[in-house]
């Protein structure tokens, strides 16, 4: 300890009253753990994505009443689109120029469409792709996307926002964060969103678990 006086002796020299330090440390530790647990939804969510999914599963939320149009140029509100046909909807978010994650999502939706048609579930489950890039995705662009994806309009629909100003509200409601990426692309968190016909977002499932999404949708379908 002798040659180490500058490092350790000060603490030792203070002598009695170690209980103060013990008390302060315990308080700090408790406070810190409370903050950490609060932030991570009691240790369940260490990423924003898992938090978003946990929150939605615990407390389904109503999607906003935003004006959208489809590939044929028909204007409607998002909730009216969802209310059609008394179905549960599997919703994804795309932009039609996308060369990365949306291509994967497109394939997942094509497989889901195939499943739905094969099992005759088209009166129970619908697919809805929502473009968050209304500036580029005109009805023409949506039509080209629809043809490219070989969408069956009775199962799979695609819409975009009528007003680019609603973009923030749409993305916030579903917990989507879009960030600009090189080559004019966007990077965004991709998942399958289950929404009831009454417009309630009740579950978010990984796009790799399309079967889980379909089964959950069927279990909830009227």
């Amino acid at each position, binding site marked *: 300890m002798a040659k*180490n006086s500058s490092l350790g002796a*000060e603490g030792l020299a203070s002598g009695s009253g170690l209980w103060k*330090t013990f008390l302060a440390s315990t308080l700090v530790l408790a406070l810190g753990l409370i903050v950490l647990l609060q932030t991570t939804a009691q240790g369940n969510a260490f990423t924003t994505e898992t938090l978003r999914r946990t929150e939605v599963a615990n407390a389904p939320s109503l999607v906003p009443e935003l004006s959208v149009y489809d590939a044929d140029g028909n204007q409607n509100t998002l909730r009216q689109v969802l209310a059609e046909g008394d179905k549960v909807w599997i919703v994804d978010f795309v932009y039609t120029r996308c060369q990365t994650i949306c291509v994967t999502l497109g394939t997942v939706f094509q497989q889901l469409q195939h499943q739905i048609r094969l099992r005759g579930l088209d009166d129970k489950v619908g697919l809805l792709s929502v473009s968050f890039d209304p500036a580029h995705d005109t009805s023409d662009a949506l039509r080209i996307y629809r043809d490219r994806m070989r969408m069956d309009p009775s199962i799979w629909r695609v819409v975009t926002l009528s007003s680019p100003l609603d973009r923030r509200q749409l993305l916030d409601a579903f917990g989507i964060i879009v960030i600009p*990426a090189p080559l004019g692309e966007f990077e965004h968190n991709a998942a399958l969103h289950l929404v009831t016909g009454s417009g309630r977002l009740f579950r978010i499932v990984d796009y790799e678990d399309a079967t889980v999404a379909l089964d959950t949708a069927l279990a909830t379908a009227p």
Partner: protein
Amino acid sequence: MRHKWFSPFALWIGLALCLLGSTLSIPPVRSLIEQSMTWHMVVQMPILFAGGWFLMGGGWDLTKKSLGSWNQFGLTGFIAAQLIITYWMLPISIDRAVVMPQVDVFKVLSLLASGALVQISVSRSPVVLQLFFVGYTVSMLISTGVFLATTERRLCNAYSMESQLSAGYGVVALGVALACAWGFRINRHNP
């Protein structure tokens, strides 16, 4: 005796780092930390920590003495700093700091505080206790960094996969740098 030659110098360095670290949270410079996870985790966060460290290194003996009985062996300060650093390693906290300005203010203040707390605590702490906390932080930084650099999952919704990858290597480097800095300090105090 400690650091007498160093004190005013440390104060200026501390002030400069505080200013630099805080500026990175203010537009237009803010776009750097919004677009790059490396700028956020590997540049800004350590600058803030170092800012707090040097500012407190400027010799605030009053604070050190009056609160000393609450921080014997530097235990309280180390625990608090450890919790703050752990908090800012979480992807969810990093995302929030990017998206919510009030969380970003909390980030700047808490990281400055963590540096200051370690500065207050390290001089009154036995080497074994320092080894425990520094060792824990170093291993946390390295394992977090390796995880960021190797996972297939995009952990922060605010950052791209490429950004996460390079930040991962940076965080590993931070861990190594911290270990070296501590080793250097121990060596200087125990020749």
